[in-house]
Structure formats: structure tokens, C-alpha cells
């Protein structure tokens, strides 16, 4: 197992129905049709996922695609029907009850769609809750809780009750609470789906700010492809319980694995996803000081369009690797791809 893989799922299945384990043993690679005909409800089918250390791994799918079940299988909130789970190399499915409690207490955090705040506790008590569950002294837990509350920008509201806060603020509490124990692996289950579009945008920015600071390993669930594109290092797209493609946002847009994936990418503003390196003419000569090949088209569009000749593209080391011309950029901007 590669060292930088935080969490690995190997052929994880979740079928609902009687005697599901036996069925899977007899038919280890049954397709959707067979599973359904046998009377099972397939929630997750043969999922293989590697979440790398420090990345934002987004699982995207429409409702009923099994993304919520998959993330709950990853933390064994739901017991998978079959498959293996490795967390930091440790076989999670073989972990004892006690070991599992320990891992969850110290190494995992989770944020929920509807916040899941405890209504009878104040903001401070909610955030300190995971720490007191671990058995930390109240004073130490409170100090740490105040730190995280400050971090998510809720300083001064420690003594409010959840119902006195707006949706966005409540989710900030949820985020603070999950960060209080300094988890190694951070699950976010559609954390912004219950919020208004404007607040959602603001929370996404806030989330990016926190991640830039904390560099957690993140599994992020969403049904919103735009959100996935915005936040993800890599995206897994799910349909009918199966993962149909795992790729970076750019790869998804450039090489969708199926019509289904392409359907999602169709309305994505390509200029914000595609980088210069992916569309430049390799080895061609260009003018100018050199555009970094990792830049997105949107960032360099104006310069290229205003220039009279194709512009030079350089790699991270500053070496010229190709050129990009006006026509390529305009085609991407107006959506006429390739």
C-alpha cells in the first residue's frame, strides 16, 4: 500500500436485503440487473477508492446514487456487505468495537448536511462535546473549543443555543465541532446543501480558507457538480451505487468516461477548469514573457486575445514548452470544444 494513501476502499459493497452476504459470495461480480432481480436494493456496488493524504476528494452523485452510503461505509457507520477498508494501512473492518471508538474519537471528524447540533447544548458545549466524550477535563476542552470557534469566525457567540443561529452559522458550529479533535480524516456529507445559494458560496470560500490553513485529508460529498469542480482535487462520480469515473476536474471535462459524465460537464464553464497546458500547441514557438502551463484559461484569456501572436507557455521551472493562440482560447470561451 502506497504510503501517502490515507483511506482505501477495496471492492466495497452494500446491498440491502436478506442474506446479502451469501448472495455476494456466490456472485462476486453481479451486475446491476442481477442484483435487482435477486430482490436486493443496491446502495454501493464494488467501490474502489484511494483517498490521498492532504487532498480534497469529492464524491459526486445525484440523490440515490449511493454517495451517502459509501461515505458511511468508509467510517463503518454502515457495515459494508463485502469489501475491505484500510485507514492508514490498518484494516478497519477487522477493528474491534473499542479500537473503532478510539479511531473515531481521535482521528475522524464528520460534518452533516443538517448540522446535527445537539439542541440542548450551547455553541461552546457543542464544540467541546467530542472532547468531553474523550474524557478531557472541562477547562482544557473549553479552551480548545474557544480556539476552534474563533477559527470559524463565531467568536462572541459561545453561549448561544443552536436555534438562535442562522443556517450558515449553525454549520460553522458543525465544522468547528468536527475540527476540535484535530481529525486526520475529515468527512463532510453535503455540508452546504441545506444552505441558501449565497451563503453556500460564502461557506465554500470559508472552507477553502480553512483547508489552506489546516491541510486535512478530506472526503467531501455533494450532489452539486459546480461545487465539486470548485473544491475538488479529485472527483469520484457515482451512479446506481457504482463509481463510474475518478479524475481531476480538468480530466473529467476533457475526457468524460461516459455520456452520463459528459452530461454533467456540459454546462461547466470550461475556461475555469481547463489549464493552458492541456490545450497549448506543444513545442510551438510563442511570444511574450511566458504563461504558466498550470494557469486556467480564464486567467490568461484576456492577454491571449489581446495579443497579436500566439503566446509562449512555460512549465513550473520556467522552460518554454509550447504556445497558445487566440483561436484556441476563443473556442473554449464560447464553448466550441475541440
Amino acid at each position, binding site marked *: 500500500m502506497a504510503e501517502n494513501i490515507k483511506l482505501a476502499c477495496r471492492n466495497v459493497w452494500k446491498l440491502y436485503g436478506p442474506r446479502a452476504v451469501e448472495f455476494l459470495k456466490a456472485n462476486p461480480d453481479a451486475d446491476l440487473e442481477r442484483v435487482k432481480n435477486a430482490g436486493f436494493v443496491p446502495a454501493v456496488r464494488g467501490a474502489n477508492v484511494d483517498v490521498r493524504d492532504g487532498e480534497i476528494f469529492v464524491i459526486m452523485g445525484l440523490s440515490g446514487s449511493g454517495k451517502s452510503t459509501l461515505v458511511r461505509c468508509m467510517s463503518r457507520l454502515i457495515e459494508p456487505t463485502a469489501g475491505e477498508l484500510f485507514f492508514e494501512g490498518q484494516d478497519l473492518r477487522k477493528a474491534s468495537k473499542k479500537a473503532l*471508538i478510539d479511531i473515531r474519537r481521535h482521528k475522524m471528524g*464528520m460534518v*452533516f448536511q443538517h448540522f*446535527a447540533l445537539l439542541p440542548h447544548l450551547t455553541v461552546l458545549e457543542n464544540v467541546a462535546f467530542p472532547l468531553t466524550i474523550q474524557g478531557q477535563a472541562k477547562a482544557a476542552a473549553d479552551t480548545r473549543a474557544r480556539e476552534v470557534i474563533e477559527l470559524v469566525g463565531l467568536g462572541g457567540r459561545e*453561549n448561544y443555543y443552536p436555534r438562535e443561529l442562522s443556517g450558515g452559522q449553525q454549520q460553522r458550529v458543525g465544522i468547528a465541532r468536527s475540527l476540535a479533535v484535530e481529525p486526520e480524516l475529515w*468527512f463532510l456529507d453535503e455540508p452546504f446543501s441545506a444552505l441558501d445559494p449565497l451563503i453556500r458560496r460564502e461557506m465554500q470560500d470559508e472552507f477553502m480558507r480553512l483547508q489552506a490553513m489546516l491541510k486535512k485529508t478530506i472526503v467531501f460529498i455533494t450532489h452539486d457538480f459546480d461545487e465539486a469542480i470548485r473544491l475538488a482535487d479529485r472527483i469520484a462520480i457515482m451512479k446506481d451505487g457504482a463509481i463510474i469515473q475518478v479524475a481531476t476536474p480538468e480530466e473529467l471535462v476533457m475526457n468524460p468516461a461516459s455520456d452520463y459524465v459528459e452530461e454533467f460537464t456540459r454546462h461547466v464553464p470550461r475556461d475555469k477548469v481547463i489549464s493552458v497546458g492541456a490545450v497549448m500547441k506543444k513545442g510551438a514557438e510563442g511570444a511574450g514573457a511566458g504563461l504558466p502551463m498550470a494557469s486556467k484559461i480564464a486567467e490568461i484569456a484576456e492577454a491571449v486575445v489581446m495579443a497579436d501572436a500566439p503566446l509562449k507557455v512555460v512549465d513550473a521551472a520556467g522552460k518554454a514548452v509550447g504556445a497558445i493562440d487566440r483561436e484556441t482560447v476563443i473556442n473554449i470561451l464560447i464553448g466550441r470544444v475541440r
Partner: protein
Amino acid sequence: MAWLLKKPTLVFLALFAATWLLAKYSSTWFESPSLAWAIDYPKTWVLPLKDYVSAAMKWLVEDAGFGLFSFTELTRAIAWLIEQPYEFVRAVLATGFFDGIGRRATQIVPPLSWIAVTAAVVALGHYAKSWGLAAIVGLAFLYLAVFGQWESAMVTLASVVIAVPFGVAGGLMLGILAYRHKSFEAVLKPVLDLMQTIPVFAYLVPILFMFGFGPVSALVATVIYAMPPMARITTMALKNVDPEIVDFGKMTGCTQRQMTWKILVPSALNGLMVGVNQVIMLSLNMVIIASMIGAGGLGFDVLASLRRLNIGGGFEAGIAIVILAVALDRLSQALAARSTEYSPPPREQGFVARHKRSVTVVVILGITMGLGLFIPALQTYPEAAELSTGAFWTNGVKYLNINYFDQFEAVKIFLLTNFLLPIKRFFLGIPWPWAIAMITLIGWKFGGWKLGAMNFAMALFIATTGMWEKAMITIYLCGASVVIASIIGIPIGIWAALSPRAGKVIGVAIDTLQTLPSFVYLIPVIMLFRIGDFTAMVAIVAYALVPAVRYAAHGVRHVSPDLIEAGVVSGCTKRQILFKIRLPLALPEILLGINQTIMLALSMLVITALVGTRDLGQEVYIALTKADTGRGLVAGLAIAFIAIMADRIISASARKAKTRYGID
């Protein structure tokens, strides 16, 4: 035959006609001795189940043991454990502490002064909600003092104060266990069903055997009676906790204990408090009934007055029960609502400033108890200043009976001859094998073969234990009452739903009616109509009316507004909207209301045994007075079975109606 299956309604009409004919002419048709067995279940065929039960009970009490100690010693030990806190609370509230025994006893510490107790409930009312509530409960307790009901009321209150914690804690534990273990829930559910339908008198007898006559038996019966709803509500409330919150608990690494007490119970508090309110009200209801086995207090006052036909005394104690019930209900509901209104804690202040109310109460307590040594009026409300409404009630009833006797009598006789007696003759006339077949068939029609089989078994149980005739009288009395309660209640419910102003008044009225202990309903009717089936029916109708009103109002009110609009747009008149849209769609809800009405009617039936009916309720009551465990339990089970059959049939048909309209 095929066409018959297509027209089930016709088949059932034909069967009903056949039943009616059978009932009417059975006595002549089955006159010959060789056929008489079909009308009167032969005594020689009766299974002596009740004797077995009585014998088992006798063995349990006299011979059963666990080696070191006997069963009786165990129960007496439990009784002693319950008795200690009860005696203490009763002394604090009502009697005071004594030194010495019998006549030579001297009071060393008096009970809490009436002023202090009233001040305490006023403070509690203010803490729970507002000055308005404080005024209501304060006036209620003042009433108890001024009208001379104080000591009895405090004895009753002491029983409630002891029974409620036991009931709540026991129900909570059962509910949590059922939530944790599916298998335990599967066992618990039918037991709870049975406990809620079996009449209370039926288990008073075995409790009497085990715990002896006195307040402890009454307390045990009260706890058993009040616990099932708490257990049910607990399981339901825990299941209703947001699954995300449960996931959060697991992800935080909660142990099972932390999960239960730090996550589930606090999150479900809202629902749990509804259960606590139920336990309080049921405890009060049962404490009143349990006066028959020595609970004392207000219930005993009513019972004693009824036995002596002391109209005024009965009314006075009855009104005191009503007032106590309303005060306890309002107070516990307000406390329940408050417990989930989390608000910022008060700013840091001194102890006195933070505990204004408690300090005030303690000061008042100190002053009244201290000065009470010299001015007794502060300690105990002076007897000279007590008012009595007894004479007023006695005279009032006397006046009614003298001046309107003929009118009352006319109504009574008219209903008896034209309504009650024909129904009675109908039910008693049906040959029992035919009736069992019909009950089975109805079960099969509404709930499939499982319900059919269950109905068959339960009906057979009633016949073979020799309860058939009494069961038919039970069904007749209960059925007639339910019909009248529906005829009165459903239109009131519809009216409440259609007119917001009427709805408010009716709402308050039925809320109050619902808090009253069932015993109270007997008092006025027995004064006006004396004893007999008619009196029983009036009391049952009064008690069982509430759900018919409530469910009808709820059903009519909650028809989807889109459908009403669709009706209006299609040009329906108000009447058409009511009859063509609202009522048909409210039908499942109304059916459930009738179901509840039947349940309440059956539970009231047992209590009306006191006014001389000849049904299963009477059987249970006689068993109680003769301390015959087997007789009481078998008759009690028969009542429970009738209730369960009615419940399953009606629930199944309501479900069918709901699926048919697609509103589920």
C-alpha cells in the same frame, strides 16, 4: 358463485340480514333441548380456566419460594420499600410526623402549611410559564383549602408524587431497552397492548394478594397502569431522533451509555416530556380508582359518598379531583414545554437574585410554620372558615329530581325501550357458533386470514371460559354507547373544524374533559338517573366522547387545501364541499376516532360496574370484592380481547380507506 365474490357488500348485507333473523327468532327455533346449546353456552362445556388461575395464584402466594425466602416475603419486602418514601411524603404533605402509636400519638412535626404549599405551586407556575399559570394553579390550591378538601387532596397528591418517578423511570428503562434490542421490543409490544386494554380492576386482585390491602397496593397498581404509555413514547421518541444526530454520536466515538444519556435522551426530551405528562395524568386517574384497595384521599371520599348516597359530599370531592387534575395537567404541560426552550442562562448574580422564587417559598414556609405554632390558621386552614358546597349540590340534585323527575324518566325509558333493549336482544339472541363465524369472517375481510384466525381464537376463548353472555352484554352496552357518542361527537368535531371560533371553545372543553379521571363522570349521572344500564351508558358516552370529537375535527381540518380549492373552482357549494370532499377524505381519521372511542368506552365500562351493570365489567368488579384472582383475570382478558378485536378490525379498515384514497 363468482358473481358473489364481485359484490362483497351484497354478501355482507345478506349475512347481516341472516344474523338479524337468527337473533330475532333463535329463541323459538332453537327451543328444543337438543339445540339449546347454540343459544346458551352449556355450563358443562366451560373450561375451568379461572379455577386454574386462582389455584396458581394461591400457590404463588402460599407456597412459592426462592429457597432462602418465599414469594410472599419478596413482595412484602418490595411493599416495604415503596411504603417508606410514600409514608414520608404523605407525612410532609398531609398528616405530619407522629411520635407514638394510636391515640396516644403526638404530632412532633406538622405537615407543610397550606400557605407554603400554595406558594410553592404558584412559584412553580411562574417558573414554568407565566403569572397567568401561577394564578390558575394558585387559585386551584386555594380552592382545595377553602372548600375543605385540603387533607384528602394532599394524600392523593402524595400518591401521585411517589408513583410518577417510578412510572417515568420504569417506562424510560423499558423504552430504552426496546430501542436497543429488537427482540425485546417484539416481546414488549404485545404485553403493552394487553396492559393498556385489560381493565385495571382485573390486576387489582393479584396485586391485592401480593401486596395486601392499602396504599402500597394502590401505588403498585398505579405504576403498572401508568408505565406502558411512557415505555411506548420513549421508544418512539428515541426512534424519531434525527439519524444524523445518531451518526454524529457514533462518529464522535460515544460508548453505548454516552450515546443514550448524552445524545439520545436529551435530543428526544421533547417527546419524552409528553410521556411524563401522560404518566402524571394516568397516575392521578388510577390513584382515584385505587381508592377501592385502600389508596385513600379524594377517591376514597367520592367512593364513600357514593356508597352513602351523599350527593353533596360526592360532588365536592369530585370537583376537587377535577381541579387538582386541571392544575397538575397545566403545570406539567408548561414544564414540558419549558424544558426544551433552551435560552441563555441569566447573567452571573448573587444566589438570592438567581433563586428569587425558591428563596421566597422557603421564607414563606419558615414564617408560616414558625408562626403557625401560635396562630394555627397559618398552619392548617381554619375549619370555621371552610365553605361547603355540599348542601348546594344536594339541594340542586333534589330540586332537579323533584321537579324534572318525569322528564328524566321519560327520556330514560324512551331510550331504554327503543334503543338499548332491542340492541341487547339482538346481541343476546345470536347463537354463539354463528357469532364466532361472523367475527372470524369480518376479521378475514378486513385484515386477511391472520386477523380472521386471531378473531376466531379470541372469540372461542370468550365462549369456552363461560363468558359469552356477559361478553354480549358488554358489546351491546359498549356498542350502544359508542353509537351515541359518535352521533353526538362527530358533528361537534365537524363544527369545530369548520368554525374557528367554535373550534377554540370546543378545543378547550375537550382538553379539560380529557384530563378528568374516569371516576368523576359517574358522580352526576348516578345522582340523576340512579343505577342501571342507562346510567352506565350516559357515563360511558360522556367519558368516550372526546376522541370522536377530536379525530373528526382533525380529519376534516386537515383535508388538503388544494382539494378544497379545486372544489371551489369547480363551483361546489359549501354543503357540497363538506359532503363530497371533506367528509369522504376525513373518513379514515373519523374511523380512528371511533376506534379510540371504543377503547375508552371499554375502559369506562369496568368503572360503571359500580352502578350495577350485568356485563364483564361487573364480573371483574365482583372478582375484586371477592378477591377471586382467576375470575377477575379471565373476565379482564375477555374485555381485553374484545378491545383488541375491535381495534384491529377498525385500524385495518381505516388503513384500507387510506390506501384507497392514497393519503398515507
